[in-house]
């Protein structure tokens, strides 16, 4: 783990170094020109836009001392050997330098000493024929209604194989994978601590009450598909809840939105009843399919809740606007309600309408907390590691950026911002 962090730091330092060396002023020779005249465009070059699918060309040329807002640049492109010029762009001469290309420092030299213009060829020649053939480009300078042509440059664009600008993302990914495998391979039966999660302690209370009152328990897994993380977490919790339900000999009902989730949950509940030693109490209609339409699902489950008046309701998984539709009816029918979702927009409603709410990540942790399964516990440790990384980087990031900005170390601030940039 330490090794990895060290590696990351090493990388950042390395990149910073590259940047510093790249940021040195380039040795462009400036020629003196008489006042009023426009010096010719120098060092006009063609380049392929790096790290893209192809079809975008980059034109670069040196910034001239005469570049002010009165002077306009026009970019022309042609697919023919001679003539056939199409105007692709027009802009004031004091804009569009290397700094305006949004790429991080390790992938791009953001120089203000040259103009850099992107030309998106598919806009003029259609998608199909823009990667491969050679295109011609020229830059026209316009001042006081007079125009000056540059020389013609040509080149072809290419489809690239790696998004170097997403390197920070990839490095983070590799770090997390490494930590993940380390944690998984060191998963142990005991010794991993996990803090108390308030909502989960209430499960026993809720189930006990249901048993006393002889009323059913509802478990609503939400409207997520099986590949949703909250739904996966929900099936784990369902496993633990139904185990306890089987032990207490209470009834449980699970209304479903997604048929695939239903088939998975059937297995989960069956298995739990088996583990609790009560396979005889398992019935196939514990899991019911309701509807795959959001609000008709909500209407139907509302109807069921208000008719059967369950003693306890669990809302665990992915919820959208139906969260309050369900939770308020549940509250009115007098059930103890325990909710958990990772949809931050719905949390306020569960929080106000339910007795206990698992907020965001607590839902993921709940499966581990209840089952004490070593694999789940170690995954939880990886998540804690991730949060630690965020806390540390926010803490140091904000201090360094503040200090840097205060002291006007612009390149330094840029380096830090680039490190946390999403491209």
């Amino acid at each position, binding site marked *: 783990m330490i090794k990895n962090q060290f590696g990351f730091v090493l990388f950042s330092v390395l990149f910073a170094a590259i940047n510093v060396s790249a940021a040195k002023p380039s040795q462009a020779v400036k020629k003196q020109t008489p006042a009023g005249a426009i010096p010719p465009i120098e060092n006009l070059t063609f380049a392929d836009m790096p790290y893209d699918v192809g079809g975008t060309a980059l034109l670069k040329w040196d910034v001239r001392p005469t570049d002010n807002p009165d002077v306009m640049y026009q970019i022309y492109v042609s697919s023919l050997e001679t003539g056939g010029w199409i105007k692709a762009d027009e802009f004031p001469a004091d804009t569009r330098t290397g700094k305006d290309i949004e790429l991080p420092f390790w992938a791009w030299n953001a120089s203000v000493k040259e103009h850099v213009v992107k030309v998106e060829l598919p806009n003029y020649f259609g998608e199909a024929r823009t990667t491969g053939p050679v295109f011609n480009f020229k830059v026209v300078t316009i001042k006081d209604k007079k125009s000056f042509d540059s020389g013609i440059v040509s080149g072809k664009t290419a489809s690239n194989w790696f998004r170097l600008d997403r390197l920070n993302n990839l490095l983070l990914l590799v770090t997390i994978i490494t930590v993940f495998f380390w944690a998984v391979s060191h998963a142990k039966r005991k010794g991993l601590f996990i803090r108390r999660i308030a909502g989960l302690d209430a499960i026993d209370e809720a189930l006990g009450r249901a048993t006393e009152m002889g009323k059913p328990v509802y478990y609503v897994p939400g409207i997520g598909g099986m590949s*949703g993380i909250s739904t996966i977490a929900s099936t784990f919790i369902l496993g633990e809840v139904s185990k306890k339900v089987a032990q207490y000999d209470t009834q449980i009902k699970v209304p479903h939105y997604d048929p695939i989730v239903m*088939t998975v949950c059937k297995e989960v509940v069956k298995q739990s009843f088996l583990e609790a030693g009560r396979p005889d109490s398992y019935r196939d209609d514990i899991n019911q399919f309701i509807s795959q339409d959001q609000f*008709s699902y909500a209407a139907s489950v509302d109807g069921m809740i208000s008719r059967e008046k369950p003693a306890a309701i669990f809302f665990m998984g992915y919820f959208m606007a139906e969260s309050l539709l369900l939770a308020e009816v549940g509250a009115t029918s007098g059930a103890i309600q325990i909710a958990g979702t990772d949809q931050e927009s719905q949390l306020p409603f569960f929080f106000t309408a339910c007795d206990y709410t698992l907020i965001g990540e607590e839902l993921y942790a709940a499966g581990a907390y209840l089952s004490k399964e070593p694999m789940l516990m170690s995954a939880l440790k990886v998540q804690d590691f991730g949060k630690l990384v965020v806390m540390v980087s926010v803490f140091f990031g*904000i201090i360094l950026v503040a200090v840097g900005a205060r002291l006007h170390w612009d390149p330094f601030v840029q380096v830090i911002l680039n490190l946390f940039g999403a491209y």
Partner: protein
Amino acid sequence: MDLLTHFWTWLCGFFVITPAWMTAGAWLAAGLTIFLFSFLYKDNPFFKAAEHLYLGAGMGWLLQVSFYSVLVPKVWEPLMKHEWLVLVPSLLGLSLLTQFIPKISWISRYGFTFLMGYGAGLAIPVGLSTDFISQISGTVQPLSMMASMTPWMIFNAFLVAFGVICVLFYFFFSVEHKGHMQKVSNIGIYFLMIYFGAAFGNTVMARFSLLYGRFDQLYTFSSSKYLYATQFIVIGMVVYFAIHAFFTRGGKEPEAAR
């Protein structure tokens, strides 16, 4: 055969939407709207009917959507053009249906695993970039404008960063939240409370607008043009509840509202 085509044209002609259809629609829509609203008073047969109708209509609508916007243009038409590659997802999709036959239900794993693999592969980089890296940079970035910021803005930027750290600490599961730890995670809870309260308050207006829209629709249907649909149905419901209450007066009232 001739008779059949004749019948079909007649039938289609019947289904051209005329003002009479609109009036019928108004009665239907007003009825269904009021039946669903009646649940707010209490459960009743009309609500149950509307609820079940909705189940069917919702699934019917989705079937129509998946048929005309996926299966026809993306499976049927390519097959007609002999593009056999679409057979792969079709077979994966069909494999899901083996769920109903326990003996061969394992075949459905092929479809499941495809969905799961694709979903997981998609979730990782997107999660990393939008919810992870971008959120860090969103917290750090405001301060890069330090030179042009007022003290108040600087304070805000630090407050956000402080809040994020505290909230993240609240979600930290590996340490017991005791002593100073408890304090930090408590501050995190306060930030969460502000977010919850603000998000709740922010939604109220949108929900009211929706309800206003429904009421406005009902009001439109109450005009003479629609033969007073709303009034008749509302009065009908009130009469039903009155009669129902009268006949069940002796019995126990099941509704336990609070």
